[in-house]
């Protein structure tokens, strides 16, 4: 919600109606209908963002990162990310993710971005996306609808329609960034599909990578 408000403030009152954005960019975690017919794209011309004079961003700490991923991907916190299947990322990466470690005598958080902060965030998001994909696959195999990765008719296939890709991308943008993607962003993610499939990947690979890519933008990791 904070991100949404920041975006609204940045856009200014003359460009996007708050009501429109709230409807189109809600992060209620339940949207799986593929959004609007155009995949939820927003015309870039509607968002003439101006540089913020006081760009005082904060990095999401481990708890915020975890809670946001829990909501976005509808997974419990302890199922988001376990290193080697055993060690909860919220504990293991707590210091580079802005936490403290009393057992190690670290009572204050580090007031900088550690060398490993970016990598720890990537690991956290990547595994959360992977775990969501696995859970969705299990749901589909059980005859139930997938929660997040629901827009690809053939996940193990090597082709998908533009509508499928746009719908899946829009789903991820709404869940991870609480907004609709720009047309240029839809095009970029569709381009990634072509690129990774040319390397030998499948639709499901792209879906996880799209989740990772969107979920590790600085827009997703700061507030």
């Amino acid at each position: 919600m904070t991100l949404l408000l920041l975006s609204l403030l940045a856009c200014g009152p003359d460009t996007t109606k708050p009501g429109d954005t709230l409807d189109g960019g809600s992060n209620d975690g339940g949207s799986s209908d593929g959004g609007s017919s155009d995949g939820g794209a927003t015309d870039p011309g509607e968002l003439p963002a101006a540089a913020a004079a006081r760009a005082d961003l904060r990095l999401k700490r481990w708890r915020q990162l975890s809670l946001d991923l829990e909501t976005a991907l509808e997974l419990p916190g302890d199922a988001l990310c376990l290193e080697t299947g055993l060690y909860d990322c919220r504990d293991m990466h707590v210091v580079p993710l802005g936490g403290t470690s009393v057992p190690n005598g670290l009572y204050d958080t580090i007031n900088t971005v550690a060398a490993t902060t970016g990598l720890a965030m990537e690991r956290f998001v990547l595994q959360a996306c992977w775990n969501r994909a696995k859970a969705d696959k299990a749901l589909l195999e059980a005859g139930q609808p997938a929660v997040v990765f629901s827009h690809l008719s053939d996940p193990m296939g090597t082709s998908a329609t533009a509508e499928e890709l746009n719908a899946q991308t829009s789903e991820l943008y709404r869940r991870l960034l609480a907004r609709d993607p720009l047309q240029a962003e839809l095009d970029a993610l569709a381009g990634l599909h072509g690129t990774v499939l040319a390397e030998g990947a499948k639709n499901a690979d792209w879906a996880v990578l799209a989740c990772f890519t969107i979920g590790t933008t600085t827009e997703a990791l700061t507030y």
Partner: protein
Amino acid sequence: MARLSRRDLLQAMAASGGLAAAAGLGAFSRSAQGADGPRFLITFGCFGGASMLDCYMPVSSSEALTVEGRGTVISYDTVQPEGSNIRSVNRSIPTQFLDLYRDQMVVLGYQASSVNHFTAQARSVNGRGIYAGRTLGEAVAAVHGASMAMPNVNMGRGGYSEPGLDPTLDVRFRPEIVTNPVTFPLSASGWRGVIEQSEGEGLAIQDPEMMALLVAHSRELREGTLEQLSPFAKTFGGARRRQELLYARGESGARMEVDDLIQQLFFVPDLGEVLPLSRYGLTPSEEVDRVLSYLPDAFPTDVSGTPRDRLQAQAALAYMLIKSGASASVTLTDPGTDGFLAFDQSHQSHRSAQEAHWDRVLNVAARLIELLKTAEYQDSGQSLWDRSLVLFATEFGRDKWDTGGSFGTGHHLNNGLLMVSPLIKGNQSLGRPDPNNGFISGFDPDTGEAYAFDDIAPGQDPLFTDERLPPGEEPVFGTVLAALGISYDGQETLPVVLG
């Protein structure tokens, strides 16, 4: 699946569009700032006050003064091995350590400026801010670790892990905090080892080499396109935290992945249910067996992931960091047998605490030094140890009087410290413990001649203004850096240590 060469991976990484790419692959070269390669600083933070009176500057029991109502100056049965200028408490580990390294050891009187734990710890590694506020680790990282992935790794606690105050210092040289040396390598990649290999999903991202390529494509899209065109990026493009995160990803993060530190730093083998590395496509360093032969208690035995001996695990990671060319400065801290207090257990029982923890840090330091001796620095004919300095940062001293029984002691400014290195003039004990009050004196910084507190009445303390007190944080700081080939304006040193 496509099989990628190391060069392919480098190119894929460079294609991700980060700062590393902008800097070119040459940024990953091993060349150091100095013409003859890097020097390495290993700091043992002796948490709680490691008293030199209880190790290498002891008062002999036969000389110690007893004052009625006050007690007896803390004293020991002492030994001074033939050929050594250093006196030791007569206990196996300190004497063995002395036998092994006396020609590279300097013991000197040292006067701390605070008896607050965190303040004294921080000052012991930042010289009270004498070098623009940089810590020893930061100073070494900036000179010797400029091309390294994690030039300044800190496994310390409290003040030993505090960053310095120099605002001009590149954030890459700030301490990289490590809480668990065993699992830390998992922080050195954004993707490798994240996804289990044996789940039978049949996806490309389960193949590590394919994953490297696919993640590189994803990052290229993210940094090169999405981070440029989104309204958020346009609005907050210049935000400091955003820039720092992008910098960390494109600079340090890229270096860690190119050097494959997630695997190179693993000093433990696949431990099955405790640490199932192979199931996640991870292969530990080929040095595992050798490291564990020197540091056998460095690995965990249960799913807590906590190593059996945390200090040995720190030493193992320190070695791996130096050996792999990832770090120029590493800081370790004795976690204490209770997990916390270490030397500060002296409040409860001075002698047993000092004995247990001196033995512990000396033992682990010797194991680390021997490991470093076995590894050659590139093809120089020199070992890694030939280029290293170990500093035992003792925080502060303890009270000087044995009041009987299993007495405890409070904090005291007066103490000493220990350096071991082939880069200094060893076999020296600088300063002298006074049997009348337990104070360790200063010394002439050029000749090493000890000052004497002869005119101070038995049982009385020297004044704070007494010029015979030992050197404080600033000259010790300057001396350590000078030994490592680092100079700065106004640097104060102890020439007798440097030889």
